[in-house]
């Protein structure tokens, strides 16, 4: 046991030392890789942090974009609302004087003439309606009709005007006359104003083609003729 046991123990110790040496050398060789692993780990951690920051930034950016989009839509809604309000105001202002003036300014000459003729006949209808609505005034009607006949009968053969008919009510009279071809419509109008026997407003229509078609509406003194609102 003595010598042989010592040799075996010494050999085992050497072998162990060799194994330890090999292990240490192996450990030494692997040491550079260890920091690499640490760097990867730390890089991985850093990347993770960067990803998180980027994700947060992206989320913030998306939030901002969403807010801007929301603002844009709100602005579009406000613009649309303002446009509707403007359109409404414009349509509401259409029947007023301002739009009436603008409408008038946009009428063509033909349209203006048509409108004028329509207004003229509306005026005739208004006066006819007023005459029919009135009753005779016993104090004035007969006297007025006689005065008109006298005023215009005197002109027969002299001024070229003939009174065909005269009828009066309470505040209005209507005369129908004809003119000779020898006098112009303008001259017949002058004769009418010249022969009118009292101070009353008159509305006259003188047909330019039919000389037997002159109509005069004459108000009683102190009264005005009703007039169509334009």
């Amino acid at each position, binding site marked *: 046991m003595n010598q042989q046991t010592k040799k075996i123990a010494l050999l085992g110790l050497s072998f162990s030392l060799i194994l330890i040496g090999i292990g240490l050398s192996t450990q030494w060789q692997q040491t550079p890789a260890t920091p690499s692993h640490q760097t990867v780990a730390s890089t991985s951690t850093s990347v993770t942090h960067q990803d998180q920051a980027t994700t947060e930034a992206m989320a913030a950016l998306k939030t901002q974009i969403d807010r801007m989009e929301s603002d844009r839509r709100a602005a579009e809604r406000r613009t649309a609302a303002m446009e509707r309000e403007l359109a409404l105001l414009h349509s509401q202002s259409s029947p007023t004087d301002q739009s009436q003036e603008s409408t008038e300014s946009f009428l063509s000459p033909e349209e203006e003439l048509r409108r004028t003729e329509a207004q003229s006949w509306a005026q005739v209808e208004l006066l006819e309606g007023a005459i029919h609505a009135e009753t005779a005034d016993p104090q004035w009607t007969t006297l007025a009709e006689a005065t008109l006949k006298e005023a215009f009968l005197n002109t027969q053969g002299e001024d070229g005007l003939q009174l065909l008919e005269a009828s009066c009510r309470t505040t209005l009279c209507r005369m129908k006359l004809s003119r000779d071809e020898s006098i112009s419509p303008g001259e017949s109008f002058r004769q009418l104003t010249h022969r009118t026997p009292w101070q009353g407003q*008159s509305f006259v229509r*003188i047909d330019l083609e039919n000389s037997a078609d002159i109509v005069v509406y004459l108000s009683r003194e102190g009264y005005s003729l009703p007039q169509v609102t334009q």
Partner: protein
Amino acid sequence: MRHHRILASVKGLLAAVGLMIIGVSQAHAVDGKEYAGSACVPYGTNNRYPSYNFSAIGNPSATQWLYLDCPAVHDARSISSGWVRVMDLHYYSDVTCSLNSIYFSGGATWGWGTPERSSVGSSANTQQLAFGGVGASDIAHYYYSCRIPPTFNGNLSYITSYQVIEND
């Protein structure tokens, strides 16, 4: 309660002021224009040669009447009133005018008119012939239709000026 009365009073005051402003603006919604007599235009075949004196228009003829149309601007709704100032130096004949608003439409002449008004007596002072309202169409034109008598003892009669007031 008192607060409500004060508020009501303030409202009433504001309404009154508003109405006053509207009334003033309405009162100013008239358009009067004056014209010299020389703006009148003679018509007719017998006497078409007037005499002018400081832009008044007179009749120099010893035998013929002078017939005139005196135009006025139509730039508002219708005529509310008007006048013609005349100098009538004829002993027994008068200066006479009517105010007319005439337009042509649909093969007819349509017109609003006033009966004639005449000067009174004979005087070197001007007289004013006053006219009331006259209707109008948008396309109507306004004019006074007047006549001036011949001279009397060499004195001429004149239309010195005229006016038309429109309402909007």
